[in-house]
């Protein structure tokens, strides 16, 4: 049974996709310009702006972003799993309030978080410290790891744990040998989403970042306030390529839909 799209609907979908892709395409084209200003290359193509990345301070900023992303996603995941087990498997007073509290960073504007964290870190002496930045990111991205861990846990067949328990496995072994492998796709998906959130985070990080802890988005933001050249376009294009390669790899290994829908394997 197929219901064809009407002409208007097709037009709408085409326009929708065009609006999403157009800016990316323009950025992608500008990245290959040989000129020193923002322009879409017409006669000649050049990689000079890609070469320029290598000698810029964007590379250290990239490594900081990568480090902060990996560290904060991992910490968020490690905190989320016990929290998810407690809230998904046990009934206790204040359970719903606790889940709402863990998920609340989704509701709080990042600007507000940024200002608050800046004050707080000045207070406890964590400014200009990468540990403080990572902690700030953990707060912002934890809703993602928690949501996917919760979905994986509630989606898995509880009888599998019971079966293992009754087959002679103590609860710690049940968790390691049965629960963890079964919720692993959900946890991996949560980690990935959290990493992307962290890597992308600008609004809050701008407040907290200092010269030693400048992440890539912050560096790019600073750069375009002072310069107008195709450097930012070439970095964006490089990041897009990186994302595409990673997505393709993940799709091959795991299946992205399964990963990001947080479905357990059962």
């Amino acid at each position, binding site marked *: 049974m197929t219901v064809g799209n009407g002409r208007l609907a097709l037009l709408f979908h085409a326009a929708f996709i065009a609006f999403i892709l157009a800016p990316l395409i323009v950025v992608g084209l500008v990245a290959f310009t040989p000129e020193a200003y923002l322009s879409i290359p017409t006669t000649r193509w050049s990689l000079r702006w890609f070469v320029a990345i290598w000698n810029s301070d964007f590379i250290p900023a990239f490594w900081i972003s990568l480090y902060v992303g990996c560290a904060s996603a991992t910490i968020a995941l490690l905190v989320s799993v016990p929290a998810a087990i407690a809230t998904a498997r046990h009934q206790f007073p204040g359970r719903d309030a606790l889940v709402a509290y863990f998920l609340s960073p989704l509701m709080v504007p990042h600007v507000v978080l940024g200002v608050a964290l800046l004050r707080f870190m000045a207070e406890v002496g964590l400014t200009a410290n990468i540990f403080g930045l990572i902690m700030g990111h953990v707060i912002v991205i934890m809703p993602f790891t928690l949501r996917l861990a919760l979905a994986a846990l509630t989606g898995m067949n509880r009888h*599998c744990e*019971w*079966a293992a328990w*009754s*087959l*002679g496995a103590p609860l710690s072994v049940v968790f390691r040998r049965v629960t963890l*492998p079964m919720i692993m796709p959900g946890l991996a998906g949560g980690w990935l989403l959290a990493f992307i959130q962290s890597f992308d985070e600008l609004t809050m990080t701008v407040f907290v970042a200092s010269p030693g802890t400048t992440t890539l988005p912050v560096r790019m933001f600073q750069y375009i306030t002072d310069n107008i050249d195709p450097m930012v376009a070439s970095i964006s294009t490089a990041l897009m390529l990186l994302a595409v390669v990673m997505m393709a790899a993940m799709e091959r290994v795991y299946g992205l839909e399964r990963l990001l829908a947080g479905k357990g*394997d059962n």
Partner: protein
Amino acid sequence: MPFLEIQGLVKRYGSVAAVDGVDLAVERGEFLSLLGPSGCGKSTTLLAIAGFVEPSAGSIRIDGREMAPVKPNRRNIGIVFQSFALFPHMTVAENVGFGLEMRRVSAAERGHRIAEALALVRLDELAGRYPKQLSGGQQQRVALARALVIRPDLLLLDEPMSSLDAKLREEMRVEIRDIQRRVAITTILVTHDQAEALLMADRVAVMDRGRIARIGRPYEVYEDPGSAFVSNFLGRTNLIAATVVGRSGGRLRLRVGEVEVDATGDVNGSTAMLSLRPERLSFGSDGVPGKVESCLFMGGQWLYRVATPIGELAVIRPNEGGAHVPEGGTVRVTWPPEAARVVHE
């Protein structure tokens, strides 16, 4: 002393009692079925035996040993769930071997016993497959092999056939019954399917609202259900409200409208419920007069609905290839004296 002994088992969830005073004694090697509609407490009883549910009151003893302080992983019980609950990330052999691994059985011995268990359920060739590569029936066999390979003291089956299709379910009933006999393991089957319980079990315990309403051998329970609930749940029956007009030697004289009938059983008081199994009724030259309202063909049988002075009666007659009574035909419904039973409301 019975092998499994349950005394005064109660499980309350808040103010609701899911199990409300169950006493049960199961002999070694016996196959007992807990039968009842959903919410009758049969599954909760099973989960309490396995140790997943902590009883609010009462005791469970296996081979004389009190189970309350024993964790599920120390009870040596094999369990098969309706969902089969196979570990999706392990192969068939790894699934079956899991319990042996937990018991620190050596790898060589393990391989030997896994092969033996898989042969028992006729799955020897699929040891390397993953559960999702198997059909429902095959998954069920793996679950059974996994539960049996640890040589448990007790085998618990929680609605094990409910997710199989009808044909396969019938095959598996017989097969599980055969395997249970062969390894002579004490087994408890929880089911809502009366045909399954009657066919497989040595004894059937019919549960209603957290209690055992009737327990006995399948034939006995079917023939002498005791209560209207059990007679209606086990097979089908015609239930007729009647007035007691006389008693003599274990039999009651009942009156329904203008008609008087004799029935086996006893009640206190002046009213009684009469149970007549449809397959025990037949058409004859005397008996209660009636008119055939409908006549349905069921392959092996004919199902009649007959309007009579004592109410509408369902009558099941075997299809013997001859002519059937047409709709609108007049008949006389008769039954052997012992087929009329008095049951509690």
